[in-house]
């Protein structure tokens, strides 16, 4: 029996089909169906229509968590973007010892986010951490900063812990973009009298735009849904100042054991992320 090449491709793809159906399509279907059900362990499961969605859109905590998520994701993405880009530009400029500098900047990428949360929780701790101590030694503050009891500072601390892990990732993308720019462009600009600020603005930035943009989209997508850092740093506090959307979904499962509203919250989150993720897909498809 002869198997044609394209049939052979189908056979090879069977593991992929199985995984797509069992681990993506089936759970997604369950998610959508459960979001229309009154589904708790205590009651018989019944159809409720849009009640779960109504509950969530009427829930003050949902809107609060959405607001916190936008601040958190926006802050983390912004800090990651700036940090990653600056490091990438500096790394591209040096020649001697660039290998060792590169490895050292990438190190924090390997640290699990949960652990990053613990590390920064210690650093920012007003009773034992070095951050307050450093500020006091520099005479910037007179007493330890109570970071985790101040809503704004707590959010800021989480953003820093999150970005610390992501900056290397962003840096990898920016660096890959910068290195694909031919050196002749810079030489030509120099001949024309451009200084380094001008060549950065008119050569580097426009040419790495696409690469950086993909990195940016991935970072924002991921930080929109992360929870690890918040779990080990603040647990959502103080006074729900770092209460993000993911925590809201988990509470539907843990505190309320309501699979229906949990699913509805999941569907809403899926749509929110898809709205800017579809942009990411569009960019990739354009490349293909």
């Amino acid at each position, binding site marked *: 029996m002869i198997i044609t090449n*394209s*049939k*052979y*491709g*189908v056979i*090879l*793809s069977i*593991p*992929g089909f199985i*995984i*797509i159906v069992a*681990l*993506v399509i089936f*759970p*997604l279907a369950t*998610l959508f169906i459960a979001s229309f059900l009154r*589904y708790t362990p205590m009651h018989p499961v019944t159809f409720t229509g849009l009640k779960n969605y109504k509950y969530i859109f009427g829930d003050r905590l949902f809107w609060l968590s959405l607001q916190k998520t936008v601040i958190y994701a926006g802050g983390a993405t912004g800090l990651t973007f700036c940090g990653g880009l600056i*490091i990438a530009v*500096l*790394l591209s*400029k*040096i020649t001697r010892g660039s290998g060792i*500098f590169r*490895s*050292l*900047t*990438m*190190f*924090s990428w*390997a*640290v*699990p986010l*949960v*652990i990053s949360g613990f*590390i920064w929780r210690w*650093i920012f701790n007003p*009773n034992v*951490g*070095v951050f307050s*101590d450093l500020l006091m030694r520099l005479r910037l503050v007179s007493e330890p900063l109570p970071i985790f009891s101040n809503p704004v500072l707590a959010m800021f601390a989480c953003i820093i812990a999150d970005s610390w892990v992501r900056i290397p*990732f962003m840096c*990898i*993308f920016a660096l*890959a973009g910068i290195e694909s720019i031919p050196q002749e462009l810079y030489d030509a600009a120099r001949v024309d009298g451009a*200084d*380094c*600020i001008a060549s950065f603005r008119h050569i580097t930035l426009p040419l790495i735009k696409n690469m950086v943009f*993909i990195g940016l989209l991935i970072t924002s997508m991921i930080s929109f849904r992360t929870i*690890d850092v918040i779990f*080990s740093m603040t647990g959502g506090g103080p006074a729900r100042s770092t209460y993000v959307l993911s925590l809201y*979904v*988990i509470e539907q*499962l843990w505190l309320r054991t309501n*699979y229906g509203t949990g*699913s509805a919250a*999941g569907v809403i989150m899926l749509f929110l*992320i*898809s709205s800017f993720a579809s942009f*990411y897909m569009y960019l*990739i498809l354009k490349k293909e």
Partner: protein
Amino acid sequence: MRRIIARILERPLTSYLLLIIILSIMLAPIIFTVFTSFKTREETFRWPPTYFPETPTLEAYREVLFRSPIARHLLNSLIIAIGTTTIVMIGGIFTAFGLSQYKFKGSKTVLLIFIATRIIPPISLLVPFYIIMSFLNLINTYVCLMIVNTFLWYPFAIWMLKSFFDKFPRELIDSAIVDGCTRTSAFLKVVVPVSAIGIASVAIITFLWTWNEFLYGIIFSNTRAIQPVTVGAHYFVGDELVQWDSIAATAIFTALPGIILFSIAQRAIVKGLTEGAVKG
């Protein structure tokens, strides 16, 4: 003014200086953690905090390894990460190879579904996975954690692997087939050895991501016999008191695989990440 700034920025020394400043900020947390892990517990609660351990001790490491469940959690993480990597790689290389070299009608759609999968936030599927896993009675098992981690990393692996196979010269496969190989043996004997570095980098990334995973770990496991170390690390966090020296030692054990693998295979990892995300 601008000319002065530009001239300062153009000096190579400026780049080195700035890099050293940024690097020390980036590395300081790791260094602080290493130092804290060698302190005595009494010293970690002192104010003002000490920077270097005054009386270096291995007490925290002894506590973490022998008097706490962390060793067990590390073993759990290892089992889950190796299991997931095996499933993802075995399921991944054949499919990625098929999608890359033996295109069929609809293979493009399959690839599209794989990118689309990447944008599903894991938290959205938390509840459905929970329902399915309780139905199958799999909550709090290694198998459950391997399955959900496969969902998380399989699409990434497919795209990274595909971008490596895309660059594989087709003539090499064809000439192996002319020499009497079947397509499968040509794949296993020619393609896999030649792309070994690419395949290894995908395996390393999958291993690290699974090792670092937290959300599904905390939802789908609830006993110390199963929980991965990212979840188990909360053992030293009490309501009143956090045992900073032990937390620091745990942090080092948990970050160690990443730091070791990253030091060995940095080039391959960077390549895998950029190719998988940008081309894919």
